[in-house]
């Protein structure tokens, strides 16, 4: 732990006003984009083979938040997804379950019923996902609705407009209010929509802002914009949770979401976790993948490791 760390007490002062919060966030070390991306790329060259690959694939499966966030979602679709989460590979019952299914609030009850007793969590996006452009009261009602329906986890979006306008305290207060609406039963994931924040400095500031406000997880993106999770922005957020724990003792999870489609990609992210935040985060309580098509690729790779043959997409379920 850094010997120069301010105490948790000192950190509580930074949210006293808009200006103290601004000073704190702008006082965080800058991020050199070239260096950050070079480091992410260099960790991407790790070669994960045999036993390490088997471990990583099972770990990745157990970290998937299996997601469907479409206007066309129906109870049938959500049930199929839930069944898949509980038994990802019907031909191999040793396959771990995914961490959660992630749905819109009105589908929480259906999802909850489908995964009951399996240990699979139900996560729900809320707060006028994905744009977040609604009054606070509406957002909180959205959250309460999802929690009341049994959601174990709430994935909220921050007000990017307020953040980019420099109104950090508004963003902070909103996260605090949502956290309160989650009560004690639901864990809160805070989505920054990193593609809209656009700079790495902003992503580091947003990460600290979210953690100061009580986020249980910080999450890259909604999956609804052009740039979603990348190795570089996830590496940066992993550095943030690592530093936050060193300063406050509080551990926060990370969830890259959107754009992670292959086992190879997922394993690269796990390498980032392993060599940045460390093994304490190698657990689905602290790291998740927000993804839908990733799971089938993980399953095909898992089958290949087990049988030595690559079976193809007809041997995993289409949901």
């Amino acid at each position, binding site marked *: 732990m850094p010997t*120069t760390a301010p105490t948790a007490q000192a950190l509580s002062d930074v949210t006293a006003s808009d200006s103290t919060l601004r000073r704190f966030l702008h006082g965080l070390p800058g991020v050199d984009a070239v260096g950050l991306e070079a480091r992410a790329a260099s960790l991407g*060259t790790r*070669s994960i*083979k045999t036993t390490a690959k088997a471990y990583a694939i099972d770990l990745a499966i157990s970290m998937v938040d299996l997601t469907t966030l479409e206007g066309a979602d129906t109870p049938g679709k959500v049930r199929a997804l839930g069944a898949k989460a509980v038994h990802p590979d019907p031909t191999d019952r040793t396959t771990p379950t995914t961490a959660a299914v992630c749905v819109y609030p009105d589908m929480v009850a259906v999802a909850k019923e489908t995964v009951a007793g399996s240990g699979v969590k139900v996560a729900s996006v809320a707060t006028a996902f994905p744009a977040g452009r609604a009054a606070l009261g509406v957002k909180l009602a959205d959250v309460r609705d999802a929690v009341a329906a049994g959601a174990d986890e709430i994935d909220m979006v921050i007000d990017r407009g307020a953040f980019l306008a420099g109104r950090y305290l508004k963003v902070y207060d909103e996260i605090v209010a949502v956290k309160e609406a989650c009560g004690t039963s639901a864990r809160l994931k805070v989505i920054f929509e990193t593609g809209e924040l656009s700079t790495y400095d902003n992503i580091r500031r947003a990460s600290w802002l979210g953690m100061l406000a009580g986020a249980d997880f910080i999450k890259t993106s909604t999956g609804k914009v052009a740039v979603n999770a990348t190795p570089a922005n996830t590496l940066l957020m992993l550095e943030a949770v690592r530093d936050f724990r060193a300063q406050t003792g509080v551990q926060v999870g990370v969830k890259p979401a959107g754009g992670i489609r292959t086992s190879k990609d997922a394993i690269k992210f796990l390498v980032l976790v392993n060599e940045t935040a460390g093994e304490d985060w190698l657990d689905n309580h602290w790291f998740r993948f927000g993804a839908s098509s990733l799971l089938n690729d993980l399953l095909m790779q898992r089958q290949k490791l087990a049988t030595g043959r690559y079976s193809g997409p007809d041997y995993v379920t289409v949901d």
Partner: protein
Amino acid sequence: MTSAFEYAPAPESRSIVDVAPSYGLFVDGEFTEAADGKVFKTVSPSTEEVLSEVAQAGEADVDRAVQAARRAFAKWSALPGSERAKYLFRIARIIQERSRELAVLETLDNGKPIRETRDADLPLVAAHFFYYAGWADKLDHAGFGPNPKPLGVAGQVIPWNFPLLMLAWKIAPALATGNTVVLKPAETTPLSALFFADICRQAGLPRGVVNILPGYGDAGAALVAHPDVNKVAFTGSTAVGKEIARTVAGTRKKLTLELGGKGANIVFDDAPIDQAVEGIVNGIFFNQGQVCCAGSRLLVQESIHDELLDSLKRRLSTLRLGDPLDKNTDIGAINSAEQLARITALADRGEAEGAERWSPACELPTSGYWFAPTLFTNVTQAHTIARDEIFGPVLSVLTFRTPDEAVAKANNTPYGLSAGIWTEKGSRILAVANKLRAGVIWSNTFNKFDPTSPFGGYKESGFGREGGRHGLEAYLDV
């Protein structure tokens, strides 16, 4: 590093490279034995396994090679630049095609990790040949007036730390400008130069244009002293560089020297800390610190010393030391027993002089030459480890209070090869860079190389520039 996520061994296959049990000298387009029949063994530093037996050049061989280069010079220099370019482009393409083979070979002979030979050395080697191939027919526009002339025969002596890359730095500009070459690789790393000789044949390069003489210091000395050599280029230690300068003094030989260094990596309190940590690691542990431009002195602003050191130590604990052929290895073997002894002695001296030594927990292999990544804190300008080039994975950490003090300490060395500046403040980068007396200054990065960028030293780090347009001058009669 112990973790639930243990990386299984991922060795690059050795079978891609076919190392013959013995190699000759490459003179006048043929592999031949040494005149006196002498041979020496080259070993793999990570295992001490003998890789091959190589002919050892002596004075008679040097004479034979210089004569061959002289004979080839008239025709080679008379070729239109566009024709010489074709050969260089062909060589560059063959290097790319054989890059995996050459990377494995270099890792075997040198001990550096395959991650580096694959991702740094080989791409840069090819890039140098491509870059200077492009110059060959454009010399009229290089800023030296119309139709600049080559010098003649270039005698080139290169070190063991980047065997093939240093060869490329030397041979590519020499050939592009119309010179012919006699090159002596280091005695611990002769193999990639001999594979390059094979590439020259594969490319159909005319006989005698490139001659390769594996051997020891005596062969290098004979080459430098040979009366029919027009140009001497040397990369290596400052002590040998001084001797070479004495040898060529009073002759008409043109000389460039790229010698030692004690690079200062300056980290200001407004630096991007996580990237600075990466830059510090890359600055001193790239190629086990056996880099003349290594950032071997870390100058850190006092106000962030503790924080930075905590981050740095945490990062060093994740470095993976071991089998250089394993694709996940970050730190490979030291090149030779002799170099290991030198590093060990200097590190012990640092401890004896009162600096505080730290290394991450790290198991060293039982055979081969290994040295754990090491950092020294409480180092002052008066410590030997802050003044002498260690040429190993040893970082000396010093502090400063103001930008002026940083500049004064950075410049307070007989060397002047490289420096790094870490700050998010652009104006400070420019102000400090202007005051540093070093040939290469990196800002918010370190150990970044590119064939378009000139490289070379101030003071006892040598003179002349290699790379870029400037690199042509050393091989032209201008």
